[in-house]
């Protein structure tokens, strides 16, 4: 069972789920936040000490007036690592969380043991259209996010209690705060990605219509030595839609680069 607790990071209360044993692995969630029943995270916890915070403004974490964008978030997470007394960690970042990991890594990858990018936001590949999670209807959103029929179950779990419904709305507002414009990217980030000097593995759901797989190839081209795998029957949320494959990919990669 995950241990759920809050830490105070310079006056901002951050909610954290921590489970499993092994080397510390920081999971940075994406626009959809964390609901708590993600099987991919449970699978990772059989091999790692998985630390999954809600970003400021998401989930049960406070929002912070001093964290306005993903650049702020990257510095905030250095404070969070200090608060948790974690020196070096494996980092897995999905969507906005991947973008956040990249913003941290281009500054310095000193705190990284390894990096996994999962359908990551952060860059803009011109002429490759993305889906807009904000303008579409709920039904359309589920089609952007899921390849298979897990969508209904996922949405249902957000509807389970009024508190979860509130968090769902809160997550959407926080995702807008961090990624509205420029949508899901920092247009300057690509010019600094040569600075990512940590072993990097890129995992991508093939059916992702929010950030299509062309982005995986673009990231591979920008991050020296990185590897890519694309997953079938999987869209934006591999840790939910293909939990075991996702967890295996992460642990095999870490086994390979940081045994």
């Amino acid at each position, binding site marked *: 069972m995950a241990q759920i607790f809050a830490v105070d990071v310079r006056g901002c209360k951050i909610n954290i789920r921590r489970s499993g044993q092994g080397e510390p692995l920081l999971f940075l969630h994406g626009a959809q936040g964390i609901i708590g029943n993600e099987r991919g995270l449970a699978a990772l916890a059989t091999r790692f000490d998985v630390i999954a915070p809600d970003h400021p403004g998401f989930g049960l974490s406070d929002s912070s007036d001093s964290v*306005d964008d993903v650049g702020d978030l990257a510095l905030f997470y250095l404070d969070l690592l200090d608060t948790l007394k974690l020196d070096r960690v494996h980092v897995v970042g999905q969507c906005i969380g991947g973008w956040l990991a990249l913003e941290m890594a281009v500054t310095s990858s000193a705190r990284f043991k390894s990096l996994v990018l999962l359908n990551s936001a952060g860059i803009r590949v011109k002429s490759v259209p993305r889906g807009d999670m*904000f*303008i*579409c*209807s*709920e039904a359309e959103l589920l089609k952007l996010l899921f390849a298979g029929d897990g969508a209904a179950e996922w949405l249902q779990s957000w509807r389970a209690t009024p508190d979860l419904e*509130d968090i769902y*709305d*809160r997550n*959407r*507002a*926080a*995702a*807008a*705060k961090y990624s*509205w*414009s*420029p949508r899901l990217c920092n247009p300057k980030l690509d010019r600094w990605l040569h600075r990512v000097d940590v072993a990097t593995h890129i995992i991508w759901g093939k059916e992702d219509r929010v950030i299509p797989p062309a982005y995986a190839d673009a990231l591979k081209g920008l991050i020296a030595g990185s590897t890519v795998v694309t997953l079938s029957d999987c869209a934006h949320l591999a840790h939910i839609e293909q939990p075991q494959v996702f967890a295996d990919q992460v642990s095999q990669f870490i086994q390979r680069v940081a045994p």
Partner: protein
Amino acid sequence: MFHLMPYAHLDMSYTEKHRAAWVVLPNTYFDPKKGHELYNRYLDELEMAAELGFDGISVNEHHQNAYGLMPSPVVTAAALSRRTKQAKIAILGNAFCLREHPLNIAEEHAMIDCITGGRLITGMVRGIGAEYFSTGNNPAFSHARFQEAHDLVVQAWSKPGPFAFEGKFYHFEYVNMWPRPYQQPHPPIWAPSTGSAETIEWAAHPSRKYTYLQAYSPTQSVARYLNYYRECAQTMHGYTASSDQIGWSTPVYISDTDEKAREEAKPHIENLFNRYLRLPFEMLFPPGYLSSKSLKNMRSHKRSVSGQEHTIDTLIQQGIIVCGSPETVRKQFMDTHRLLGFQNLLCLMQFGTLPRDLTERNIRLFASEVMPALQRLTDKEYAGMEVRAAE
């Protein structure tokens, strides 16, 4: 009188292909030659209202849509400023906070105020949710940015320059506005809204006392929001709001009889609500645009009415529009004033596809048969909140 300047030639079959008349409706639906005719016709209608003795004529801002063709209401206000002599020109509103440089609009407002010798009323709005898609502005910062843009503009209008402005969103080394507005310290500021509690509380603050203008809504909601303004003034701020701080905006249609009015207005008003205002929830309320409390209220409200198309009967019945013979319309406004006490009434006399001849007759009938009685109304005819609550 208020104008939206809709694209009246809209091909209504667009609904088969597109989910909204906003943001995603391709601009190939707009024919510039027809646009030329429409702009001039609509400006004629506003000028006519001014000549017929309306206290003010009003324009507003919307982007990337067929509902209202004024992405810059300053352009239409400027066109009107030299063609009218007495009427106030009300820009209700301009979304200063959607701009990187709100001072540019503030300068334009100051120019219009000087040109007209102080006939400008400035409305400050956040812009509706769809505007945040059109302009790329982040809805999560909407309230904060609105308030900061307001502070910046009011200071620029009223404080001797040059001075530096250091905000969260706006940073200027030199704020030193030439021209300064004609009206001192600045033109009257109004706050038009569809009923955001945050906006109402902000507008009612004693340092502002801005006229709150409730955009068209069912009578019940109009009553709730206008009374909320008065409550805020009384309980949060300890003063009694006067009726000139209260405004209501509604579509109006008058013809010889109730039946005739209903029959003539029907297709055009139904187009307004079912075609031009076709705007899915996600576009109207992007994430972060509303506080979580307001979002919940709005969602339960919308869920209860969604799926049903408006008809003129439901619109009249709910009080969203005022439609009928001159007697009916006059009585309805006088009764509503007695209940809610609004010294400011904005009438949308052209709506949707309403053609020129019907629009002009509507304006004339209002000016001759309804307006004189309303212009005489004061705070005295308002029954007051306690009385109303006791009824």
